[in-house]
């Protein structure tokens, strides 16, 4: 089963900053939405959203979890 990594972002209240709280793996968006809600349920979130990790474009680092090779540009 092909699994995709999704990163999970939440905020507790309307004015809060959206914060990265973790990630999960799922085969598609529909399952990823449910998994996010059931896995990261420690708070009564005002907002939760998920992003496929492949859509996150690193700007200043080439290491760390978001540094996907496909986005690297050589000088």
């Amino acid at each position, binding site marked *: 089963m092909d699994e995709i990594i999704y990163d999970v972002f939440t905020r507790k209240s309307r004015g809060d900053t959206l914060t990265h709280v973790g990630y999960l793996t799922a085969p598609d968006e*529909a399952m990823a939405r449910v998994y996010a*809600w059931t896995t990261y349920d420690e708070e009564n979130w005002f907002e939760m959203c998920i992003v496929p990790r492949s859509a996150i474009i690193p700007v200043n680092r080439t290491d760390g979890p978001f540094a996907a090779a496909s986005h690297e540009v050589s000088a």
Partner: protein
Amino acid sequence: MSGVEAGLPGMDDAVRTAFRRLLLSLADSKRILGIRYSDWLLGAPSIEAGIAASSMAQDEWGHARLLYASLKDFGDDPVALEHDRQAAEYASMEALDAPFDDWARVIAGAVVVDGALAVALRAVAEGGYEPIEGRISKMLGEEAFHRSLAEAWFRRLAGSEEGARRLKGAVEEWLAPTLRVLAPDDEGHRVLAAAGLTLPAAELRARLAERVSPLLELLSVEMPEPLGLDDWDEGRGRGPGHPAEEAVERARGDLNRALFVE
């Protein structure tokens, strides 16, 4: 319809008896469904799927507890309902009598049984029974996630020959008895629908059909007719049989009886 008071004061005994049967059927089904989901906390296809099963089990137990508590208004002792009854007294749906043997049956159960329970709950909310009307909307909010998970997994499993075969076996086994419990064409259901506390049987069946038909089409399965009433247990609102003893022992909390603080 709205503003129907606790315990249905002023209504016929037949309506009160039928509404009590409906609430107990929903409560017992949710309690046993919670146990069936909880069996898959470990051993699901992924850690995330297991966590989702665990979350769904907790949701079902929460819903069951609220429904048991609501039966106090009909002269029941909720603690006795939860902890003192024998398996043969349970009114849970037949599809839940045995454990879900594999993940395909978990998903088929979430589609057919959990789906039917959501349809029944929504109809109760629309009937305006005030003591639980507001809380049902919270339950249905949680059920929306159960439905998303179930339908996503159903589509995925239906895409493989083995997955489709297993799903088909489960839905063909469970649809007809579940339709009968959801919408029995018996006197009890008729008086309830006439009182506006739920929907007529044909409407309930149509709602479940609308919900599950797109999934059944993936398996070339059509909605069956509900089972007839030849072996219908009118008192419990289900067919013969009962959930396996082991599940009922867990539902009652037998092993922890000495520790009860309620």
